[in-house]
């Protein structure tokens, strides 16, 4: 238990720094953004207490917001997907069920299950994020385009990280 707290703490700092220093400056055609930090929330153990989950999502959102100068924006979207994550996990439980303390990961549950698990959450996160950020539906299509491309970009980044961190998958 202790070891996993340290690992989570480390990954919290790691995802935040990667997001704030590298991925923030990365926007393909000014349309596709990568919000890899969502993976921190997605890869917390299945049986994490929902209250703790939301608190961590809120904290991470505030830190990311500090770097994006958009106070409350990332925090609200992170809390939203933190709230929906556990019901969604319960809904798509594989036939064998989850092991105690297992993290939802690609290596452990297979790519098909992982895509089903992550795509709706990433899409929802990006959808709310971009429309709240634009704070209007004036440029609806442009924003929607941003949402779709960014979802793809984030998903690809998340898959790459998941493939690379095979040994950590069961922490």
């Amino acid at each position: 238990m202790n070891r996993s707290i340290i690992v989570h703490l480390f990954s919290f700092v790691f995802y935040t720094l990667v997001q704030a220093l590298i991925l923030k400056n990365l926007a393909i055609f000014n349309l596709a953004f990568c919000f890899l930090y969502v993976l921190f929330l997605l890869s917390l153990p299945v049986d994490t207490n929902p209250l703790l989950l939301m608190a961590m999502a809120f904290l991470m959102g505030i830190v990311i917001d500090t770097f994006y100068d958009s106070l409350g924006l990332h925090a609200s979207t992170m809390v939203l997907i933190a709230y929906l994550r556990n019901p969604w996990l319960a809904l798509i439980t594989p036939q064998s069920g989850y092991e105690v303390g297992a993290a939802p990961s690609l290596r452990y549950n297979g790519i098909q299950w992982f895509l089903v698990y992550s795509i709706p959450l990433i899409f929802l996160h990006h959808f709310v994020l971009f429309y709240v950020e634009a704070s209007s539906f004036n440029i609806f299509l442009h924003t929607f385009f941003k949402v779709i491309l960014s979802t793809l970009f984030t998903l690809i980044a998340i898959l790459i990280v998941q493939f690379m961190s095979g040994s950590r998958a069961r922490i």
Partner: protein
Amino acid sequence: MGRLFQFFYTYRSFFTFLGFEVICIWLVIQNNQYQSSKYFNTSNEVAANIISTSSNVKEYFGLSDLNNGLAAENARLREIVVQQQKILLENRLSKIDSTKLKSFTYTSAKVVNNSVSLSKNYITINKGSDDGVAPGMAVISEKGIVGKVKTVSRHFSVVISVLNVNEQVSSLIKSANYLSTTQWDGIDPQFVDLKYVPRHVKLRLNDTIVTSGYNAVFPEGILVGVVTEFDLKKEALFYDVRVKLTQDFAQLSYVDVIKSVLKVEKDSIENLTIKK
């Protein structure tokens, strides 16, 4: 009473969710106001130091471009100095109108953080209240307008970029001498829209747009951009005008913060008039 607690306990995660979201929405609304949170933005010392270290590393990759830009600006300034001295000598001016010369003071600052692709873009610069920067000051570069200071900490400030859908700049069509408003539409970071240009104004392509100086944030005559496209729909009251910004915001490296010395005086006399 017990059943009420039972109810809250059963739906505790929903209520926590609701609580967090209310806090977040409140923060979002607060942050959209002009004077907003002091700590959770990139002028925060910890965040600013991390970003400025990273920008120091990044700076090495653009040194030659930066150098060329600065050299060009130097040459231009030297030219102006020579011209001014000539004029001064010719007219034998011994006394200079102090109000005119000192109405704006400049502070140079380095951009440590910048974005162009969101709808509300902010820029962080490495000068803060210790260098005399205060909220409301104008920020320009040698190529044109950049934005307006939003919040300051001791060593850093956050600037609302012109590329922010909420930001409007009072501007002037130079050839027609007509007042209008510049605002970004949130799509292409190279272009802004010019609003409220009525039908009777004669617009031409490549007309220069400058700041008007009516809001006392920006000095008069700072470059905004040039008209690249305009269209007058049949029933429309105003033109649809596209303006290409002279400053490429993706390449922003050094900026000047302008303090308007006369702003307080101007605002106070205007307020007096409004109150009466």
